[in-house]
């Protein structure tokens, strides 16, 4: 299907919007609303839902034009889960009414979203989750405990997967909901990490009522719906073309250049080995974006995430070793609640500790390797003992 409008049209529309809503005088939210309503929010979304059905590839140019005009953005980092995970799922599985209801305030950043998937007993094996949703009239009554929920303490809405039928095999008994985080029975507790911070939360759900109108997809189809969410998560983590020495390797290289006293000739080759690995990962991500520009998200994103975790861990470990006495010290153990993760601006010890999470969060490195082995290389899956057993009968 050819784009509905031309590149030239797009530029005109942007200029028209900017002319009609001067960012210098329009309030932030008014501008974002206008941008959404003009179909200039996420260009590849359908008309009427903030987009124009254009190719994804046009988005960066549009962002650049808005930024150049000094227009406010929707603080994408703060609403990453909404933009990256909830929105594509709503778009894919929501009713027209649901789309109209949720997508505009989501994109405009008025309503923050969070994700209620992981549980203490269901990490890599997400489909084993135990949070129950039981039908009661027009509502579902939800009970359970979710974990690793970032932004739960600021979120208005959550995407939730819950078990609606424990008597069938685990993948079949799940249903996908949108849950109001301000509903009675939702309790959010900060979950402190080994860094001292609490980026995440535990969320306890006690008799929380969710109207059936907030169900996404059919009853029992939750696993399929969740796959859309998760595939989009992986893409978000993988791609992008960063300049050389971006990220952790840049921090280490700067330390080596600027503090001659930390240079240990014995570890010089190790430094360069990691430098090469970082450059290789960077070029690979660049190549991946070029591939994705035309194609579809694929398992290559798993490789990028795997490599990123491994690199961050090795680089931050070497940094501490090089620093010697300085590496024995830490900056701050206070429990803080950061909205985003940044490796810079904190002590080397923080980088070392926080990087440990990179191989756990959003799919462990072990699971990513399984995905590559099975989906890319076509190696046989593990022998599965849990496929045909009712969820309630599984060993736990």
């Amino acid at each position: 299907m050819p784009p509905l409008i031309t590149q030239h049209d797009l530029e005109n529309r942007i200029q028209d919007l900017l002319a009609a809503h001067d960012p210098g005088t329009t309030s932030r939210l008014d501008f974002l609303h206008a941008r959404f309503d003009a179909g200039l929010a996420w260009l590849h979304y359908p008309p009427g839902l903030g987009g124009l059905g254009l190719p994804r590839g046009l988005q960066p140019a549009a962002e650049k034009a808005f930024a150049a005009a000094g227009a406010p953005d929707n603080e994408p980092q703060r609403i990453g889960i909404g933009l990256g995970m909830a929105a594509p799922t709503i778009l894919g599985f929501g009713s027209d009414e649901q789309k109209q209801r949720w997508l505009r305030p989501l994109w405009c950043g008025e309503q923050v979203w969070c994700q209620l998937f992981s549980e203490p007993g269901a990490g890599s094996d997400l489909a084993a989750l135990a949070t129950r949703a039981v039908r009661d009239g027009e509502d579902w009554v939800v009970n359970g405990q979710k974990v690793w929920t970032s932004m739960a303490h600021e979120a208005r809405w959550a995407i939730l997967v819950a078990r609606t039928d424990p008597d069938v095999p685990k993948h079949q008994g799940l249903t996908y909901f949108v849950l109001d985080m301000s509903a009675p029975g939702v309790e959010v507790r900060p979950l402190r990490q080994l860094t001292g911070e609490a980026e995440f939360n535990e969320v306890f759900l006690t008799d929380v009522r969710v109207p059936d109108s907030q169900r996404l997809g059919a009853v029992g189809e939750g696993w399929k719906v969740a796959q859309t969410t998760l595939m989009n998560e992986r893409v978000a983590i993988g791609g992008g073309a960063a300049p050389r020495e971006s990220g952790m390797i840049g921090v280490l290289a700067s330390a080596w250049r600027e503090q001659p006293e930390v240079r240990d000739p014995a570890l010089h080759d190790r430094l360069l080995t990691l430098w090469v690995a970082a450059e290789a990962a960077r070029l690979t991500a660049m190549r991946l974006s070029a591939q994705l520009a035309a194609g579809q998200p694929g398992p290559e994103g798993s490789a990028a995430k795997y490599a990123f975790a491994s690199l961050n861990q090795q680089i931050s470990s070497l940094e501490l070793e090089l620093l010697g006495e300085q590496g024995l010290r830490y900056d701050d153990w206070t429990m803080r609640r950061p909205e985003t993760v940044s490796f810079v601006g904190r002590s080397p010890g923080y980088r070392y500790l926080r990087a440990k999470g990179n191989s756990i969060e959003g799919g462990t490195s072990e699971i990513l390797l399984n995905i590559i082995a099975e989906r890319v290389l076509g190696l046989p899956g593990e022998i599965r003992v849990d496929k045909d057993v009712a969820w309630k009968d599984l060993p736990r």
Partner: protein
Amino acid sequence: MSEALLYSEPEEELRAAVADLLADRAAWASVLARTESAEPYDTELWKTLGGGIGVAGLLVPEELGGAGASLREAAVVAEELGKAVAPVPFLGSLTATALLLAARESGNGTAALADDLLRRIAAGEQTAAVAIPFSRSPDTTYRGRVSVTPWPPREDPHEARLTGRVTSVADALPADVLLVPADGSIYVVRAADAQRTPVTTLDMTQVLCDIEFDDAPGQILAIGYAPLAQALLSAAAVLASEQLGLAEQCLKTTVEYVKTRHQFGRAVGSYQGLKHRLAQLWVQIAQARAVARYAVSSSGDEQVIAVAVAQAHCSAVAVQAAEECVQMHGGIGFTWEHPAHLYLKRAKSASIALGSPARHRRRLAELVDLPAS
């Protein structure tokens, strides 16, 4: 020699005594809670260990009231303390004791002063620490930032005044006495005469402090830094055993966890990917046990090689074990409430302490004639 690589019966008895005490008094939850309290050291535990079991005076000769034991026994204690990441000033106290013993034997100082301090340490009356950054390796030519001026008012030529600063000193906070290398000699300074500032440390169970001396009175203990080098060598040998104990505990905890944690209907410990990594870790730990034992059983030039080998190997194994412990625990291992991070922080910190693995390998290169170029 190869029998020396095993544990003797008395050593196993000492281990059992320490292990029982720690099981009682240093459960990880209390260790974790203490890291955020105003009292980072478990003073009561250290009293029982030091006095009751006699750990403080382990190396002190019997004629001075100690146990007259060797580094081998100290190493067994260190293994158990490593397993518990217990917040007691054992390693710092051991380093100070080793320094005092070396000073006493060198004949280059004030033997009476050393004897007196050793007697007090063995009796549990005092704790001593060496005022040197915890990251210093035994082979370093030490150049501190503390300077000495003779003190005219007194006649005693052994008295002086110390001024300057030493950073990241281990176990000096609970010490009564500081042994301070300065201007080529080692001085004894009352801890109360120095200003100690606690440091926020990566390893929350191994407290460090910065020390400021401002015209602090000191008595000379030994001339020359030879006793310091010997003390750091002993400390590094014993630290290897602490790292061994830590690695063993991480492996044990992890193996227990992966046996019970189920994913996809199976214990995660039944997946070959994890099994092979845990088996490799076990191989590394078995080797760590051999090299750590050898480091505390050899002497003379051979010990210098053995300690460099042990530090290079055991540092890496402890870090590997702690990292696998975090990873294989998955999300829970990344939380504050699970003990894995205490081990990770101790392991990484201990790998820097007393010289990094790379530094020990470089030292080894000199010792075994494998020059860099």
